[in-house]
């Protein structure tokens, strides 16, 4: 995902220049340099007061399947439109009076635009799609005259293949690194929070403050890594990810952990694993419910148990997992 600037919306506030970490926004052609733009960084997108910058994907998903019948219809019409274009063009070229020439020129342009749009909808929407690449490849096998621009076609196939795969190639190792860094930073955040709590309890206020600040800093890092790795999808997708993650934890991850802790006689571990396991099951169900009712505008409140992490949609008398009184629950 690299940033592009819509020149028509740009009001030259130049905040993109101010915030860009690599200078990719500082060019003389009005565009943002795709090679130096950090994928998914979006600092300029968020900074622009005119909403003139947006992120475009480096790779697009495959096009929707088109039916043969629809393509045949669109192509048939497109052929008729290019024929009309050619007639109008000839009228314009041979007309003696300026008004006829002008009108015929307008009709030629109009017909060409209609033809282009109809052909585009016949499966040739994205220049870098597989469909276009295959079409170009099949063009090479056509029997054509001497001035047939074979090299241009080969160059295009090369350029299109690059568009389709560059990000995947360049990003594969970096994506792994981003996710490793995300895991590390996320752990550091929780770890420093635990340390801050301890420092507070021991009365070391300054150390507690530092641990808290550092913990927040790691959150900033973790969130940025995660976003750049392309792991933040639409809310619907994210809810699905939530259901999957929580389900894995309560079904597959925690049960053997609880068993092992019981076998080793570690009651504190049995307790924290069991609380988490039961709470994750509740979370999975809530995520699923939220996904099913995503378009529902009615406001919902959630209540969190501060002891075991259970979430309820009403204030219970006591927590159904750990038994803490309902008044301790935190409203969201």
């Amino acid at each position, binding site marked *: 995902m690299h940033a592009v600037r819509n020149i028509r919306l740009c009001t030259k506030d130049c905040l993109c220049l101010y915030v860009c970490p690599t200078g990719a926004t500082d060019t003389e052609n009005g565009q943002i340099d795709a090679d130096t733009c950090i994928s998914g960084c979006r600092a300029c997108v968020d900074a622009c007061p005119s909403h003139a910058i947006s992120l475009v994907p480096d790779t697009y998903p495959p096009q929707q*399947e088109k039916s043969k*019948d629809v393509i045949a219809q669109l192509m048939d*019409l497109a052929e008729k439109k290019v024929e009309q274009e050619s*007639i109008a063009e000839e009228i314009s070229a041979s007309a003696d009076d300026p008004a*006829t020439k002008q009108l015929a020129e307008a009709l030629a342009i109009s017909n060409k635009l209609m033809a282009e749009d*109809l052909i585009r909808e016949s499966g040739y929407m*994205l220049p870098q799609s597989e*469909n276009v690449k295959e079409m170009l490849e*099949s063009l090479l096998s056509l029997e054509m005259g001497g001035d*047939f621009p074979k090299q241009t076609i080969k160059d295009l196939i090369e350029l299109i293949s690059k568009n389709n795969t560059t990000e995947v190639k360049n990003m594969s190792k970096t994506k792994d690194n981003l996710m490793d860094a995300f895991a590390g930073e996320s752990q550091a955040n929780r770890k420093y929070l635990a340390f801050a709590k301890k420092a507070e309890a021991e009365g070391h206020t300054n150390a507690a403050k530092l641990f808290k600040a550092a913990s927040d800093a790691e959150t900033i890092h973790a969130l940025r890594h995660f976003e750049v790795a392309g792991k933040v999808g639409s809310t619907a997708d994210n809810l699905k990810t939530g259901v999957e993650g929580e389900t894995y934890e309560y079904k597959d991850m925690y049960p053997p952990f609880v068993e092992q802790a019981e076998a080793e006689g570690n009651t504190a571990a049995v307790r924290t694993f069991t609380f988490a396991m039961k709470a994750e099951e509740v979370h999975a169900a809530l995520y699923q419910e939220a996904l099913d009712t995503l378009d529902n505008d009615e406001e919902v409140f959630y209540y969190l148990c501060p002891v075991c992490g259970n979430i309820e949609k009403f204030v219970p008398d006591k927590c159904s997992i750990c038994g803490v009184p309902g008044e301790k629950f935190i409203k969201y």
Partner: protein
Amino acid sequence: MSKYVCTICGYVYDEALGDPDGGIAPGTKWEDVPEDWVCPVCGAEKSAFEAVESKEKNAASIKPKPETAQKHELSKMSFRAMSSLFSNLAKGSEKQYRMAEAEKFNELAQYFKSIASNKAHDGFETLGRMTAENIEKDFPSSNAIAKELSDRGAQRALLWAEKVTRIVASTISKYEKSGTEFLDDKNIFVCEICGFVYIGDEPPEICPVCKVPKFKIRKIERKVV
């Protein structure tokens, strides 16, 4: 009091309201609106209007089997259609700021245009006949198939092309009736997105067909011969 809708831009003529700016008093029956009255929004002729009730058109009842096939055989395409395919891919590349690709697609567009051959024709007469055929035959059957197969993209492209074809057809018929008289002291504009043709002083604020703002509507200059 009945209402009639412009099939090009969606403007509604309400008999109760008339079109005072166009010289039609409130309460004027549709049949009493003069034949040379045009749509105040897009310039379409009276014949491009239809009664609001009869919106469902008699589409051909074609029941196609949804057979999926992404590819269209290139050998079936004319060189001119190939040229349009490539010029459009060039535009698509430009919009993504991929100028190297745009340049090469444009080269291919020019090559195929240069080797395209033209069919014999009778000028405006042939254009008039072809647009009439498009409106009477081609669009109804294509619309029906695109709708049947729930192809939203195709339905969208067909809707725009049909509206533009109607306005083109009406322009051709005006030309055939009275030559270039209707163009006197007027400008000609073409929407660069959908091909909508507008004859008037200033282009509309937004294209009546595809709704792009007017900076995308291009003025076609009248050149001295």
